[in-house]
C-alpha cells in the first residue's frame, strides 16, 4: 500500500489499486468508534450518451439515478434489509458526474463492506422491478419540483447549458423515466459499473492492513468484467445570448438565480482543486459577509440571509450559481453583474481581505477534519491522484492573491451569464 503522511494533522492515507482496477483509499481516524465507507462510481446524470465499442448509445435522461435506485432491489430482498441486520446506516446519491453508495457503522465493518461491494457489483434487474421503481421516482421528481429553490438552481443550469444533458434534472423527468427499459439499465450498468471506474474511500475506525485484506478477498471472488471501450459523449452547445428566464411558481417573494458558465479550460488533479479553491476565494472576497459589496447589497435591502452562491467544478464543465429571495429581482441581477464585472480591477487591492479569507478557510478545513462525513464527502477518487482535505489545506496555504486574481481573470473573461426569476402569478411577469 502506498502511504501518504500528513504529519501536521496527525493523519495518514493508504492507497492501493487492486488487480481488477478498483482503487481503495483508507484514512484511519484514531479514537473514533464509527467507520464511513463510500463506494463511488465515476458515472452520473451527464453520462447518458456515449460510444460503446464504436457504437453510439443515447439513453433516457435520469438513467444514472434510476440505476442507483435499482441497485438496492434484489431478487427476494432489499439491500436495506442487509444493512438493517448489521445496524449500519446506508444511503446513495447521484450527481451530475458521480454515483456514490455509502454506509457508516460502529460495528461489523467487514460484514458491511461485503454488503456494500456485493450489492453494487452483483446486480439483479428484471422488467417488473424496473417498472415498479418508476412510481417511486416520479414522487421523488415531484418532491423536487415542489421546491422553488431546487427549481431555481436547475432552471439556471438549464439556461447555461441549453439543449444538453445538463438541461435535465439529475433524476430526469416523469416522461424520460417512463422510457427507461430493462435493456437501458443493463447496458448502463455493464458500461460504467466496472472496478476500474470505481473508488472505495473508507475513513474512521479501521486497521489498514486488515481492511485491505477483506476487500481483496471480496474482489478475488468476482469475475473480471468483459473489457469494453467507452467514450463519453457530452456536447455542451454554446448559449446564444444572455436572457432572464421567468418561471411561475407559488412563492412568497421572487427568487433570483444568476448563473455563470465557465468556458475556460480547467486543469485536472491538484491544479483543478487549486482552481476551485481560488474561485471560491474570489466569490468570498466579493459576495461573502466579509465583503463590502455584500454589505452594501444587504443594507440596501436587496439581499438578506437567503443569499448564497456555489461553485461546481465537475468533469467536463464548471459553473457558479448565485441565488437569493428578493423584492427587487431586476435590481439584484443588475447589481450582481456590476460587482462581477469589477472583480478583475478590484481584486488586486484586497491583500488584507485575502489573508482574512485564507484564515477563515483554513479554520473551516480544521473543522471538517473532525467529521467523517466531510472527509469522505470532500474526497474525489477520479482526479488522477488522491486529493484529501489534508491536501486541500496545503493547496490553500500556498495560494497567493496573484494566483486567485489570475484564475479569476481566466474564469470571468470567458464566462457566460444567464438568470432566472421565480415569481408567483401576482408578481409575474411584472417586475419592480
Amino acid at each position, binding site marked *: 500500500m502506498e502511504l501518504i503522511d500528513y504529519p501536521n494533522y496527525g493523519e495518514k492515507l493508504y492507497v492501493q489499486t487492486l488487480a481488477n482496477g478498483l482503487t481503495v483509499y483508507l484514512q484511519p481516524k484514531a479514537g473514533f468508534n464509527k467507520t464511513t465507507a463510500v463506494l463511488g462510481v465515476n458515472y452520473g446524470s451527464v453520462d447518458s450518451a456515449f460510444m460503446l465499442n464504436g457504437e453510439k448509445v443515447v439513453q433516457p435522461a435520469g438513467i444514472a439515478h434510476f440505476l442507483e435506485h435499482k441497485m438496492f432491489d434484489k431478487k427476494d430482498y432489499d439491500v436495506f434489509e442487509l444493512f438493517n441486520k448489521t445496524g449500519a446506516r446506508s444511503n446513495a446519491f447521484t450527481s451530475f458526474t458521480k454515483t456514490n453508495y455509502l454506509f457508516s457503522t460502529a460495528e461489523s465493518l467487514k460484514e458491511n463492506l461485503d454488503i456494500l461491494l456485493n450489492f453494487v457489483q452483483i446486480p439483479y434487474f428484471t422488467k417488473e422491478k424496473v417498472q415498479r421503481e418508476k*412510481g417511486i421516482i416520479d414522487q421523488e421528481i415531484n418532491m423536487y419540483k415542489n421546491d422553488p429553490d431546487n427549481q431555481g438552481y436547475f432552471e439556471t443550469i438549464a439556461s447555461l447549458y441549453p439543449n444538453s444533458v445538463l438541461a435535465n434534472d439529475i433524476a430526469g423527468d416523469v416522461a424520460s423515466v417512463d422510457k427507461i427499459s430493462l435493456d437501458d439499465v443493463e447496458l448502463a450498468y455493464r458500461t460504467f459499473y466496472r472496478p476500474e471506474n470505481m473508488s472505495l474511500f473508507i475513513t474512521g475506525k479501521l486497521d489498514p492492513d486488515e481492511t485491505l485484506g477483506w476487500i481483496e478477498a471480496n474482489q478475488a471472488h468476482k469475475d473480471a468484467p468483459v473489457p469494453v471501450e467507452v467514450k463519453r459523449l457530452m456536447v455542451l452547445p454554446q448559449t446564444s445570448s444572455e436572457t432572464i428566464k421567468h418561471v411561475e411558481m407559488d412563492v412568497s417573494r421572487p427568487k433570483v438565480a444568476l448563473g455563470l458558465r465557465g468556458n475556460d479550460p480547467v486543469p485536472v488533479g491538484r491544479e483543478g482543486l487549486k482552481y476551485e479553491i481560488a474561485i471560491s476565494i474570489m466569490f468570498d472576497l466579493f459576495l461573502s459577509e466579509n465583503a463590502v459589496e455584500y454589505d452594501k447589497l444587504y443594507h440596501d435591502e436587496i439581499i438578506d440571509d437567503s443569499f448564497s452562491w456555489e461553485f461546481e467544478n465537475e468533469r467536463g464543465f464548471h459553473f457558479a450559481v448565485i441565488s437569493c429571495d428578493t423584492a427587487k429581482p431586476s435590481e439584484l441581477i443588475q447589481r450582481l453583474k456590476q460587482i462581477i464585472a469589477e472583480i478583475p480591477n478590484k481584486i488586486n487591492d484586497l491583500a488584507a481581505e485575502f489573508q482574512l479569507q485564507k484564515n477563515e478557510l483554513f479554520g473551516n478545513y480544521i473543522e471538517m477534519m473532525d467529521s467523517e462525513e466531510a472527509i469522505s464527502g470532500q474526497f474525489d477518487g477520479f482526479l488522477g491522484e488522491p486529493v484529501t482535505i489534508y491536501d486541500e489545506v496545503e493547496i490553500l496555504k500556498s495560494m497567493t492573491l496573484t494566483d486567485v486574481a489570475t484564475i479569476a481573470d481566466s474564469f470571468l473573461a470567458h464566462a457566460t451569464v444567464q438568470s432566472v426569476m421565480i415569481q408567483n402569478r401576482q408578481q409575474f411577469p411584472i417586475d419592480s
Partner: protein
Amino acid sequence: MKYEIAKGIRLTTIPTTKFKNTKIVINFTFPAQHQNYAKLALLAELLENCSAQYNSELLVSRQLSKMYGASFGVTVLRYGNQHTLQVSITFPNDKYLPPKSELTNEVLAFLKEMIEDPFVDGDQFDQEYFRIHQSNMVNYLDSIQDNKEFFSTLELQRLYYPNDPDHGDFLMGNQQEMGQISSPELYTFYRHVLATAKISILVGGDLPEADVLKGFKQFESFNDRTPADYQLRVHPAPIAEVQRGAKNIEGSQSVLSIAYELPIYFGDEDYFPAVIFNQLFGGSSRSLLFTNVREKHSLAYDIHSSYNSLVGMDSVQAGIDFQNEEQVTQMVADQLQQMVDGHYSDELLDGVKHALINQHRSEADHLGSLIEKQYIQQIMGFSLSDSDWETQVANVTRSQISAVAKQMSLRAIYQLNSRGH
C-alpha cells in the same frame, strides 16, 4: 466536570482529546410562553449579527474570520416546555494554528462582547439595525410557505394543540407578532432574559478548564438568580375529536401529515419500547411504512415517522399524489394496527435494536452530539451509562412494543393538497 459560575448558572465541561476543534454552547432558558416567541427569535438575530464594538454585520463576520472561521450562531429552541436561547461557537484547537495562537481567550472575549454588549442606542437597539433585521425576520416567516414539508409540520403542530399557542405556535412567532415588536420593548426583554434566565454552559473539547472557568467568571451579567422550577414534559389537553386541516396549493405534490399522541416521555419505563416502536413503524428505511407505502405500492418517495419524547407525540409525513391521499391515510392506519398485532419479523426487530445501538456508539464521534446528549440528560434529570443504555434497548420485548402501539391515539391530520398541473 460541573462548576457553578453563580447561582442558577452551571458550567459543564466534557474534556476529550479526540477532536481538532472545541465547541462552547450557552443555553439561556425559561418556561415557554408564546408571547415571547417572536421576541426571542428577533433577539437571537440581533445578538448574532452586531455588538457595540463590532457595530456592523461586516465587522462581526470579519472578526469570526480572524478567529479562523469560528462557527458562531445564536438560535432559539424549544425542549418540551422550555424556551431556549442558544449561543454556540466552534473553533479549532491552538495546536493546529500558527505558533502562539491563543484562540480560546479571544473566543471567550468575543462571546462576552456579543452577549453583554449589544449594538444599542440608549435604552433600545440601534434603530436602523433593528429595523432591517426585523424586516428580514418577517420575510423569513413569510417564506416558510415555500417549503411545503416544513409548512405542513407547523400547521400540524397548530392543529395538535387547539387553543394552546404556547405549544401550537411556531417557535419563532408569526409575521404579525414579529412586525409589532418595538426596539425599546425588545431591549427591555433582553435585559430581563440576561438577568433572570437559567443559564447552562457546556464546553466540549481539549481545553484547560481553569481558563474557561475564569473566562465565564468575567461575564458581568452572570450573577446569582433563582429561576423557578417547571415541568418540562408537555401534556396536551384532551380533545373531543380528531383535528383536521387542509389547504390547496399549486404544486407538483401533496403533503400528508398525521399526528398521534403517544404519552410516553424521555426517562419513562416505556421510553425504549417507544423509540423502537417508532423505528419499526416509520422511523427506519425498513419500517412498515417505508416497506409498504413506498417499496410495495410505489405511492411515495418520502414517508417517515418521528417520535418526540419531550412532548409525547409521534407524527407521520408523506409526499404523495393527491388522488392517493385516502389510500395512503388508510395504509398508515393499517400499519399502526400491524404494530399493535405484532406483525413484523424478529429479524426486523433485532435489526432496529442493532441500528439504535450502532448509532448510539457513533454519536461519540460528533462533538455536537456529545454536548447535546449531555444537555438533554441534564435538563431531564435522567441519565444512563452507555452499557445500561444498550442493555435497555436489547431488552425491549414485542409485548412492550404492542403496548406502546396501543397508546397511539390519532389527534391531528393536515393535508396540503396539490391537484397537479
